[in-house]
């Protein structure tokens, strides 16, 4: 009875949620005595008004797609993977080790190898909490959070004590060989006509788009995805059907960790070209919001990742060019997460009577 038509659920609810977040943001900007229209203008201009802006927005989008997909895959197995941040950092370690292992002659060789490294390391980092959940019943939310901290500490230790080249001051690995550098949009023939200056967005974006499609196929077209979704909806029914909970939890979390790890291709290999501390920069957490807003569907994840990419880049520009403090970017993101994620049902409930009375009429 309390059901909205599909289009309202998928389009109208997120739009109204976004609108509410925007209205409150405008009020806050007014309250601190700034001009909200100026803020909007700078954000849109900064994120989408130039090839340069697009180059950053799509770069962030790429990272958020991976972490959003990671949360999505785990979600369908009813596992809440909050460890995307740590898995992405450890994925970065995998990328760094692969890139530094050989004097790569060309990126087309380095990229597949680095992807394997990123995915394996990310998956391995998810494997331990997954095993603890599957076999010992330790709650995955708790363990994945703890593993974020462990990852962060481990990376710092490795950067300071092991991977830092002798004589280098900052805790980071050596720069990757030239042959491991991924082409950015500025380097790709054709695209470089639009992106006429160096931008961080790189070929990884295309891999992210492919990953969206792959995740969709996995979840809705394969036996494995069927088992993941069945288990996620009802563990008891899954056991009745002979689906092994241990297998589903392990496999879903390994795929989730691998996706989070793959994010490192974008930031570590594609942008920084060396491994730094805190390389994921919170993208792992943004992934949770992206998956929530994207209704745990790859297409939704893609759109939500783009929205957050826009907020990230636009917010940075706003901090740069207006007297609005950059912290307001956090407020914007927070409001979007609050309304699209946490208060999603509030908007839905407000809409239900409207649709009910309309149908009755």
């Amino acid at each position, binding site marked *: *009875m309390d059901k909205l038509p599909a289009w309202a659920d998928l389009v109208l609810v997120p739009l109204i949620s976004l609108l509410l977040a925007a209205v409150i943001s405008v009020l806050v900007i007014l309250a601190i005595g700034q001009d909200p229209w100026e803020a909007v203008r700078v954000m849109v201009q900064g994120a989408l008004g130039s090839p340069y802006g697009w180059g950053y927005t799509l770069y962030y989008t790429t990272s958020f797609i991976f972490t959003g997909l990671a949360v999505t895959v785990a979600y369908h197995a009813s596992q809440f993977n909050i460890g995307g941040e740590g898995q992405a950092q450890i994925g970065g370690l995998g990328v760094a080790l692969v890139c530094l292992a050989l004097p790569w002659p060309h990126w087309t060789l380095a990229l597949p190898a680095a992807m394997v490294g990123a995915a394996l390391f990310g998956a391995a980092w998810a494997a331990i909490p997954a095993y603890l959940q599957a076999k010992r019943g330790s709650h995955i939310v708790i363990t994945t959070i703890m593993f974020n901290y462990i990852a962060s500490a481990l990376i710092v230790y490795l950067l300071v004590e092991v991977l830092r080249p002798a004589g280098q001051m900052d805790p980071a690995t050596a720069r990757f060989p030239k042959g491991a550098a991924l082409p950015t949009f500025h380097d790709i023939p054709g695209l470089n006509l639009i992106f006429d200056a160096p931008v961080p967005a790189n070929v990884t974006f295309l891999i992210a788009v492919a990953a969206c499609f792959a995740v969709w*196929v996995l979840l809705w*077209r*394969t*036996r*494995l995805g*069927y*088992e993941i*979704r*069945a288990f996620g*909806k*009802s563990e*008891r*029914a899954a*056991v*009745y*059907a*002979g*689906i*092994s909970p241990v297998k589903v939890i392990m496999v879903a979390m390994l795929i989730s960790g691998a996706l989070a790890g793959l994010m490192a291709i974008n930031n570590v290999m594609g942008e920084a070209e060396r491994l730094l501390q805190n390389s994921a920069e919170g993208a792992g957490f943004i992934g949770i919001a992206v998956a929530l807003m994207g209704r745990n569907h790859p297409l939704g994840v893609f759109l939500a990742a783009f929205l957050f990419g826009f907020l990230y880049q636009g917010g940075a520009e706003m901090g740069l060019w207006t007297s609005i403090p950059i912290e307001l970017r956090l407020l914007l993101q927070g409001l979007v997460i609050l309304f699209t994620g946490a208060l999603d049902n509030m908007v839905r409930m407000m809409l239900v009577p409207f649709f*009910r009375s309309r*149908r*009755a009429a």
Partner: protein
Amino acid sequence: MPSANTQGAQRDTAAPSAPPPAIELRGISKAFGPVQANKDISIRVMPDTIHGIIGENGAGKSTLMSILYGFYKADKGEILIDGTPTTIPDSQAAIRAGIGMVFQHFKLVQNFTVLENIILGVEDGALLRPSLSKARRELKRLAEEYGLEVDPDAVIEELSVGHQQRVEILKALYRQANILILDEPTGVLTPAEADHLFRILDNLRAQGKTIILITHKLREIMEITDTVSVMRRGEMTATVKTAETSPEELAELMVGRKVLLHVPKGPANPGETVLEIEGLRVTDADKVERLKGINLTIRAGEILGIAGVAGNGQSELLEVLGGYARATGTIKVNGQEIDLTGKHSDGQSRRARGIAHVPEDRHHYGLILDFSAWENMVFGYHNAPEYQKNAAIMDNAGIIEKTEAAMEHFDVRPPIPSLPAKSFSGGNQQKIVLAREIERNPDLLLVGQPTRGVDIGAIEFIHRRIVELRDAGKAVLLVSVELDEIMSLSDRIAVMFDGQIMGERLPAETNERELGLLMAGVTETGGAS
């Protein structure tokens, strides 16, 4: 009868010789969007009677009662309580009008005591102690008057379902209800608990309460009610005196066509032994032995019915056979022993051995309610080669096509494969499960509570299908708490009590009384404990 007057509701009605109906509904209509849940319903419930309202799931019984209890507002029509037109905008008003409701799903605070639940919402003043001692006195009186004994200091979650229901009734009586509405009260009760409930209802009627009993079980209607109203598709199709009707007539009124309450079936023609169980033991997580050495055989072409009160090991037996509980002992299927503890003791291995399983609880086991009908139609068989396009990808289009055929074959309505399982009625959900398990042509079909929460019309269909499977030379293990169902379907009946088989009987050579005694653990007549 004094109670009709305690409400003081006869103010404006003359005719003291014939008391007005305790409840009269006139022309009640209610629509939800395009669905007309109640169409111009009129009903008169006389005081001091038990009035049954019977109808299939979705016939509009619950909507009607929700209107009476103030949950919904009727689009049209009026409500008269003891002859006085009354508006009931919310449940508080219903309580003030002397109406008490006992819901199918209890509304009790699990970790409160009985007393605390009774006074919840009707405490006098800020301090609990006066209310509690008042409630304690009142509870004692109610217990004596109506035979409603419950320990006032027991915590709800430690009470049996039957006792929890008594607390719900006490709650209503404590709020001075004169009219009690019970919505499918026996759905959650064991037969013994149901019997006890009926004795309580009898008492309440004798003490001048009016009771509305909503149910879809014909037997209950025949057993306890004075008058019965039949609903079908939102309309009240008939109101008759119970003494002047028969289950067959009521079934026909409910479904709108003639219904066979007992599926005709010929004599069994048993063949080879399909299932052989020896010394089967199951110990649960709390180290309680649930099955204490079960021995059973079923041959091809026969239905073995397992009778018993719920919770005596039938579920565990099905779980072990279905491959999702560990056990010791031996089980042979077609002469080959199956793995009970190791790698091959899962649902997939069982299905590979030709065992199909319609689980007792279709909502939590048999179906994924959020999955579409076609996704559910391969659930458990999703690894079968005919459902695959290639090594990794499932043949969704092919599955949808097969689902369409199966839905037609099993008369699932509406026959829309993409509809989520939760959108189907109970009977149609069960048909989906049955279609899935039977269409695979198993050697052995395990069926648990095949008609729980299923409409009468669908019951006939489901029973027919089970008998057809038997006639096709398959073995069927039927577990049901409905003794009628066991008696009419089984070729042999085994009675379970406390994890043991108390005995086997042939349906023609036994009766409900003998089975009832076996179900209570009494092996020889006269040895009742």
